[in-house]
């Protein structure tokens, strides 16, 4: 569904992505792992066109998208949840959801499904998004990404800074999401990644250093230690 081939990204004088090759298969949840500074966030931003690929190709549903503008990429039914969640703090939860529903008011059934996944969204529907807790903001960011059906979700560190109870709720929510869409999720929490991922790609220094099935990585502690090292210790 999504294929990056030899993708390079420069930010100013820095060469961040140095030939990234990764494939995201349809109806799978692919985890993109790696230590801080490996280039995971840059990878998602490059797919979204927020930073331009200086070389390489990004193919999505059979067409090259690396030259497209960000709104055009989003209109290919790709939703993006950035690391900072990107919620509009001055808007209410309802307004955040309305804005994400490009084709008109959100479908009621879909909203009910979102409220079933994240009951806090219903409770705080008319509250300013800026007043939500960190976990609720993350729930809103994900709700916004799925307020209309999307073919591909790109999610950057959904568990960052969240309490264990919220992470457990997130795992349940992502299990539900996996049933209807394809996901590429950047994550540092290996427990979270292991419980959800179908496939995994590990980045280091702007390159993909490992790809394969998540269950294989989960079963091989030596490989985990070699690929993820300190970040694994920090997040296990």
């Amino acid at each position: 569904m999504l294929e990056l081939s030899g993708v390079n990204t420069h930010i100013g004088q820095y060469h961040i992505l140095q030939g990234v090759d990764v494939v995201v298969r349809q109806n799978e949840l692919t985890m993109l792992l790696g230590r801080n500074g490996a280039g995971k966030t840059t990878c998602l931003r490059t797919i979204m066109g927020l930073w331009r690929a200086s070389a390489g190709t990004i193919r999505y549903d059979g067409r090259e998208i690396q030259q497209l503008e960000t709104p055009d990429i989003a209109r290919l039914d790709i939703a993006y949840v950035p690391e900072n969640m990107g919620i509009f703090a001055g808007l209410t939860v309802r307004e955040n959801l309305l804005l994400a529903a490009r084709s008109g008011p959100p479908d009621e059934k879909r909203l009910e499904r979102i409220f079933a996944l994240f009951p806090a969204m219903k409770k705080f529907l008319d509250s300013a998004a800026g007043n939500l807790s960190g976990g609720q903001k993350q729930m809103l960011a994900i709700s916004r990404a799925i307020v209309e059906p999307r073919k591909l979700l790109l999610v950057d560190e959904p568990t960052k800074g969240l309490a264990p109870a919220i992470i457990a709720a997130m795992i349940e929510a992502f299990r539900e999401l996996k049933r209807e869409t394809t996901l590429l999720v950047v994550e540092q929490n290996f427990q979270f990644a292991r419980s959800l991922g179908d496939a995994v790609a590990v980045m280091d220094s702007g390159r993909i250093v490992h790809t394969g099935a998540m269950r294989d990585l989960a079963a091989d502690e030596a490989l985990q230690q070699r690929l993820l090292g300190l970040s694994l210790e920090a997040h296990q």
Partner: protein
Amino acid sequence: MKKHDWLPLALIAGLALAAFAFVPSTPTWLTLTVAGLAMGMMIFMMASGLTLVFGLMDVMNFAHGAFISVGAYAAASVLIALKGGMQAPSLAENLMAMAPALAAAVAVAGILGWIFERVVIRPVYGDHLKQILVTMGGLIVVEQLIHVVWGPDMIPLPRPATITGSVLIGDAAIERYRILAVLVGLAVFAALWIVLNRTRLGLLIRAGVENTEMVESLGYRVRRLFVGVFVAGSALAGLGGVMWAMYQESVTAGMGMQMMVVIFIVIIIGGMGSVGGCFVGALLVGLMANYIGYLAPKLALGSNILLMVLILLWRPRGLYPASKA
């Protein structure tokens, strides 16, 4: 504007009440208050577009004053051509003359804004220093072009016959034109409020002011939205320009540049990117200028700077700062 944050609004009432204690008579206070509100409304019309342009695309447009001047000149040309209608002792005939003049101000300033965005602003997105330099240069160029088209002399601009003079409210003489300015200002604010808070376009603008990148990631073309806001802001500046020119009863090429200092004070006080803050800031500045101008004329020049300093000490990002990602 933050919901339920009434303190800045209370500040307007507080300022008026404080002035009431110092101004020796109630009619004088009432006259000054209406004058201050009228001035504030006209400043709001001129400033509201600029605050949105800054909030949405982070563009420092020092050439905003050009739209004020050009709008006023365009209207003056129409009003001179329709002199008979302006001087007729009938409100209907006066309005028939004013309506095309206001439309001309809005249209010409809007078109100039559109050209300006494409030619001057677009190449310098994301670079504040270049924005300041080219927009200041643009303002000077437009001023000189006004001299070429309309001549270097000030153009007298008498008010419509039925809107000159005053009405008496008790013992207070209130200029009719100031009442008109307050009504037009309120209408502009109401229209902006409805667009920003009750329409999808407004939702997009408010979201864009907070986080442009995220709005684009949701599939919306912010650049197009920005052009629309820039044109609308320029048109509003033109409208404010003609209202201000009629208030001053003259048009000069430098009037836009002269207003820029007070416009920047207003949008800084209000919180850059906030239309509600701009409205409250403009009213505070208008009232302050009139009260201090009466009570301590020597302090009038610095009173708005003092107001800005005090407000920034209280709220360093302005009265209603737009949330920024």
